[in-house]
């Protein structure tokens, strides 16, 4: 009898616990209302560091946090764990939107954010100010990467620059003649050659790729910046992408899916990252930077405002921007490192030349991902379309 009673009690506790957990889950699903849209202007960066907490959790693009499990030769996490005693757990994401959602859970201490994410994290109060004095390796970083509009707001630094690179055009040389222009994936006459085998990046930010092409080929539209589109310009880009849609076999945001599609031959041309090209061991798969230039990313290591492992987070930021780790990580991902010292550490001595690291002029040709907002980013006096309109347009394009 007593036994039974205890058991029942246990079950009730379990039910109560389940109830509580579900309630928490439900309220978590409802989003975090604690930090409304006003940012955390009052928050202060830490003044000094303490003991390492023993663990750090990192949210990053694929290829940024490699511990040798994908390729034993590619590992810059183990040395960090040994040196600092901070055990690393990491999660990769496919699009900045996905990362925003994940970052809001507060489960990640450090976030590698592109320019279309960093400002959103700052505005929503999910990113904490970073005291760059506490990051030893910050000093060596190229000056033109510091205090930029995507990592600094009102003179407050919110992150450490990691590296930058362009969205390239990948193609299968067995089926496609080497393209020189993005027209290969935007002009019907070109796409007809590989109907159903074109691929594109599955995110609203890809609209900027179309806008960049229009900027170069249709000057009448008056596009000055592919992230500052008024309604008419957005419509033109959407039309271009709707045409492209008829030739697209599949869109990708999971980079493994694109790797597989190019390996089997289901996709033969489309936008890509260098890291994907590297991952495909088929010599016929190549990538080029087309003549129109390209959209690009410029990534920042940010600190979550909900981080409980601040010391390990700082330790990681210092480690990943150190010349050795930065050289490894940026070379593996296929992007320009963040410092002269890192350029000397790369395995391929021409790496920095290939990616024009430190070349400010070249950097200006690239259109780094930004979040489109109502107030036009190019400073003109007009109303631009914001990211929610882009999102809406993107679902429409896919139809």
């Amino acid at each position, binding site marked *: *009898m*007593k036994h039974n*009673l*205890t058991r*029942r009690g246990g*079950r*009730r506790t*379990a*039910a109560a616990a*389940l*109830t509580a957990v*579900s*309630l928490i889950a*439900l309220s978590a*699903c*409802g*989003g*975090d*209302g604690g*930090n*409304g*849209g006003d940012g955390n202007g009052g928050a202060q960066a830490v003044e000094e560091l303490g003991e390492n907490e023993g663990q750090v959790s990192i949210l990053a693009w694929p290829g940024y946090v490699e511990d040798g499990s994908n390729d034993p030769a590619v590992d810059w996490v183990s040395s960090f764990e040994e040196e600092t005693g901070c055990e690393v757990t990491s999660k990769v994401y496919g*699009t900045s*939107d*996905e990362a*925003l*959602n994940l970052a*809001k859970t507060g489960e990640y201490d450090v976030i590698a954010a592109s320019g279309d994410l960093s400002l*959103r994290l700052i*505005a*929503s*109060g999910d990113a904490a100010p970073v005291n760059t004095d506490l990051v030893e390796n910050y000093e060596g970083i190229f000056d033109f990467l510091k205090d930029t509009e995507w990592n600094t707001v009102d003179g407050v630094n919110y992150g450490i620059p990691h590296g930058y690179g362009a969205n390239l055009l990948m193609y299968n040389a067995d089926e496609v003649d080497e393209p020189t222009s993005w027209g290969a994936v935007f002009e019907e006459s070109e796409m007809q050659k590989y109907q*159903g085998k074109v691929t594109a990046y599955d*995110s*609203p930010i890809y609209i900027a790729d179309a806008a960049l092409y229009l900027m170069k080929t249709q000057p009448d539209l008056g596009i000055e910046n592919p992230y500052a589109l008024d309604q008419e310009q957005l419509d033109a880009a959407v039309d271009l992408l709707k045409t492209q*849609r008829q030739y*697209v*076999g*599949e*869109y990708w*945001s999971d980079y493994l899916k694109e790797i597989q599609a190019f390996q*089997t*031959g*289901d996709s033969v041309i489309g936008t890509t990252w260098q890291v994907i090209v590297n991952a495909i061991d088929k010599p016929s798969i190549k990538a080029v930077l087309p003549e129109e230039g390209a959209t690009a990313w410029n990534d920042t290591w940010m600190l979550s405002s909900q981080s409980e492992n601040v010391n390990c987070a700082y330790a990681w930021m210092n480690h990943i921007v150190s010349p050795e780790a930065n050289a490894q990580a940026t070379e593996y991902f296929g992007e320009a490192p963040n410092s002269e010292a890192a350029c000397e550490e790369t395995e391929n001595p021409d790496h920095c030349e290939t990616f024009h690291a430190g070349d400010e002029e070249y950097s200006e040709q690239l259109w780094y991902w930004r*979040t489109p*907002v109502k107030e036009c980013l190019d400073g003109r006096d007009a109303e631009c379309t*914001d*990211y*929610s309109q882009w*999102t809406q347009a993107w*679902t*429409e394009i*896919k*139809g």
Partner: protein
Amino acid sequence: MSLDTARAAVSPPRETAARRVSARLSRTPRLRLGLLISAPLAWLVLVYVVALAALLITALWTVDSFTGDLDRSAWTLDNLRLVLTEQLYRTVTLRTLSIAATVTVIDVLVALPIAFYMAKVASPRVQRILVIAVLTPLWASYLVKAYAWRSTLSDGGLVEWLGAPLGVQSPGYGLPAVVITQAYIWLPYVILPIFAGLERVPNSLLDASSDLGAGTWRTVRSVIMPLLFPAIIAGAIFSFSLTLGDYITVNIVGGANQMLGNLVYTNAGAANNLPLAAALALIPITIMIVFLAAVRRTGALDNL
């Protein structure tokens, strides 16, 4: 009273709190029952009622497109209006509905002869083997099966290799691939209820029908089908509802197409627009409610 004395003669139980509770419970069966079912009931209420209500309420919120924060202060019907009026959502709803309907029809057509053979023709030994054969695919992960179809249908995949001598080409990734994959994945869920339904059709009725001079088709039409109809509907509910909510298969083999599930997924997972995702999620729920209300009248729900 006499019971108490009898107990006292053995050894008087200590009057602990646990024992008091236990005594009280044994005196009040209603309380006992209430406590017993409160956990599952709470679970049901939480999972179904509260979740549905939360969904409905979430659909009334808006989201700040820049910071991604939910605005819960002002309730608006904008999301629902958008879902109802926007051409895109109508197209996707119709596409999803037709995929679900096609999958269901294919599954029922494939399942009927198999189930009939299993229930009425096969020897008990063969029948057992067939039941196991039908159940086996359920042991493999859904993802494994979907990815298997991805490589089967891919460029230079199995279908193309087998079909080459016959001039058959792989449909490639797209809606036909989605229909094929979904029909394959949900087939066991359709075969089993139909098989169970056929087992319940007495053989004597079939004999009587043929004794009275009815041909095969006549027997099927006038005897088997009316008896089997609820079982078919039961199977159809599985394949229809499971296809209606799916977004993984279409991601893997669907090419650039999207179904309702994808719209929900991208809005919740990528676009960070939870309210719109909630509004969209109400579409399949509404469809299923209508569908279930319609089949309730056939008595098929008793066969689930």
